[in-house]
C-alpha cells in the first residue's frame, strides 16, 4: 500500500522535473533537474528490488553526470564569450 503511494509520488515528481528540464530557459536549471530525475530513478530501481542498478545509478547519475555537464557548460560559455570579443 505505502509502496504504491510512494511510487505514484515519485512518478509525478519525476514527470514534472522532466517537463521542467525541457521547458526551462537556463541550462543550469535543466542540469539540476536531471540530477533530481536521477535521484528519483534510483529510488524507483530500489522499489522494484534492483539494488545493484540503483547503486550504479546513484554513483553515475549523482556523482559523474552533474559534474561533467557543468564542466561542459562552463567551457561552452567561455568559448562563446571569447568568440564574441
Amino acid at each position, binding site marked *: 500500500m*505505502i509502496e504504491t503511494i510512494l511510487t505514484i509520488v515519485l512518478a509525478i515528481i519525476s514527470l*514534472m522535473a522532466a517537463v521542467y528540464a525541457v521547458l526551462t530557459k537556463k541550462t543550469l536549471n535543466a542540469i539540476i533537474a536531471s540530477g533530481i530525475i536521477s535521484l528519483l530513478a534510483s529510488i524507483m530501481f530500489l522499489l522494484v528490488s534492483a539494488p545493484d542498478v540503483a547503486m550504479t545509478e546513484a554513483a553515475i547519475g*549523482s556523482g559523474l553526470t552533474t559534474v561533467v555537464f557543468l564542466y561542459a557548460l562552463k567551457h561552452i560559455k567561455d568559448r562563446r564569450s571569447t568568440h564574441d570579443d
Partner: protein
Amino acid sequence: MDSITAIIFNTAFYVLMAAMALAFVRFIKGPTSADRVVAFDIMTIAGISVIVFISVIAQRVIYLDVAMVYALLSFLGVIAVARYLEGGL
C-alpha cells in the same frame, strides 16, 4: 512490528514524502539558481531517508548499502553547482 511503532513509521514515511514534494515545489518556483540547488540538496537527503525506509519495509539489509553510496556521493553535485555559481570549476 508493534502497532504504535507502525503508526510512527507510517506517519514518518508520509511526512518524508511531503517534504520531498514541498522541496520540489521550491525547485519549480525558486527565483534564483541557489534556491534550486538548496531544494535539490533537501530532496537528496529526503531520498536517502526514503531508501532507508524502503530497506525497513522490504526487510533487506543490502538496501542500506545503496543509501550509504548515495550519501557518500550526493554532496558532489551540490558542490559542483556551487563552484559553478561562484565562477570557478
